[in-house]
């Protein structure tokens, strides 16, 4: 009962916060609302007994990716006063598309039938902690996605250096 209440709070807060993120005129405010959004998502993970995911969410998203967002905002020198109306207001087109997508998704999801739960129930994970269960799966069954992820990280590093370094050594 209490956990349903928490879920309703988190869900409502996430929707409101994401709306706030996309409607602020000052880009730094936008990014700060996103920080609050990440904490609420971490809270949702916590209620699914995925405590390691909650920790990663805060460390990587709030601690790394948000910092990147802020650097880009500072890099581009965006000022609150400068706003070209055509590009920074919602506009009827964008609103209609979003509303249409919302209607389509809610109509379809009303006929959603959840699949039967798999073998990793909450009790099983509570027995051996979440981080151990994750580790046991990630490095044995899911080794292929894991190695591909390392390649993606490598390409991200190369890309950042090739595109952003002022004087690229040949």
């Amino acid at each position, binding site marked *: 009962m209490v956990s349903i209440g928490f879920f309703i709070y988190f869900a409502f807060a996430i929707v409101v916060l994401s709306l706030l993120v996309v409607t602020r005129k000052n880009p730094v405010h936008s990014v700060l609302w996103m920080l609050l959004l990440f904490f609420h998502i971490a809270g949702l993970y916590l209620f699914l007994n995925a405590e390691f995911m909650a920790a990663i969410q805060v460390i990587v998203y709030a601690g790394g990716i948000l910092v990147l967002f802020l650097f880009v905002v500072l890099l581009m020198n965006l000022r609150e006063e400068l706003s070209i109306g055509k590009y920074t207001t919602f506009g009827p087109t964008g609103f209609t598309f979003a509303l249409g997508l919302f209607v*389509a*998704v809610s*109509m*379809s*999801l*009303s*006929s*959603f*039938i*959840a*699949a*039967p*739960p*798999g073998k990793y129930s909450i009790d099983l994970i509570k027995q051996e902690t979440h981080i151990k269960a994750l580790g*046991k799966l990630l490095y*044995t*069954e*899911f*080794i*292929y*996605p894991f190695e*591909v*992820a390392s*390649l*993606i990280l*490598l*390409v*991200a590093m*190369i*890309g950042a250096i*090739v*595109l952003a370094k002022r004087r*690229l050594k*040949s």
Partner: protein
Amino acid sequence: MNFPLPDLNPVMPEILMTAFALIVLLLDLLIKKKEAVAVISIAGTAIISLSLLKTTGSTFGGMYIADGYSTFFKIIFFINVILTILISIKYIAVERVNYGEYYSLILFSTIGMMIMASASDLITLYLGLELMALSTYVLAGFIRHNLKSTESALKYFLLGAFSSGFLLYGISIVYGLTGTTDLRLIATFITERGLSGNLSLLLAIGMLTVAFGFKIAAAPFHMWAPDVYEGAPTSITAFMSVGPKAAGFAVIGRVFMIAFAAVKADWATILIPISILTMAVGNIVALSQTNIKRMLAYSSIAHAGYALLGIITANSEGISSMMNYLFIYAFMNIGAFAVIIMLRSEGIKGEDLSDYEGLSKTHPLAAALMLIFMFSLTGIPPTAGFIGKLYVFMAAINAGYTWLVIVAVIFSAISAYFYLRVVMYMYMRDPKTELPLTTSFTNGLALAVTTAAVLIIGVFPTMLVEFARAALKGF
């Protein structure tokens, strides 16, 4: 707990390619002459392609599958890499971005494409797509000092990230409905539980169509293609127009034919208007283009529309004709871009249609090669483009979509205007100035290979067609 070692034999091409890409990255730090890095990349890719012959099977618990279908697409990717590197060597020196990371990024992008072609699980599909896409974003913006190049990378990245969002939403709905991300298990779940008419499944298919449609530049998700193709370095435009498109089609074929086999009527119905719209947009908007790279971008959009006809038929004849079409498309497209690269020299962009006026009088060989490629893109016999369109249209007629083929033929006839307009400019106008051509041995080699392929496949198509059919055994 001792987990059994997965069988690494089928996955050998990817492992070798990864090791090679890492070696090329390190070699770039040691070798001063970047042409040597390029030659080593070509040699290594050619040697690794030989490993494709013996490796088939499913491994990593069903996440990776190497069968005839994926081998065919990997051959297309390897040809794409070798031809792209051949046409790039002189070009990136002219553009003053002669960095060695170019070659290793191309190799990483190809690894992403190979992962996509062999993906039998939605998660590996997504990871392969991201690897390929991320490398291509960086390559599109490789000419760092040019505003158009940076703009094209930004547009590609923003829209690509947005479409990845749609892909993940679709994957999450499918996972919620079926409890698994393995393509074959999804199919058995759908038939067992009778989820065929489920609206959420339809929504998920719609989302996946949006994401894959973006990758192959199908309308109405094509808006990024003209700007990105125009701004990116021309050799990367050639790479992008073949590689990610073929990888996107490989993935569409696998996901829609295997995972959603039970709901063929639904996704075929979704793809028909997309295909018509794609052919319409590609052919009609290309009529008014004056920049030849933009024109080829719209032509590339139109070709995606023709290839979608093969997927709509939803049988193995259609899929093999689609594979056929992409193989031929790779050669003729890279050939056309190789000629465009020749016109780019120091200070002269060579991208405007007016630069081609009178090319037959100043450089007759280049004009003749361009003529062959333009004829092939239109679909005039005896070039390979005609063979590709013929087999796709035949498969569509055999599946009962005659009216769709009539529409496609009409649009194909419309496309003759803008392809043959280039030929007309080259042969029937007088040259304003004599443009110097940037020729190089490697570019010439690429042109020789592509021209030979276009002409030979146009006259002797049976070998390729039989190979495509045989590749689909056990699909």
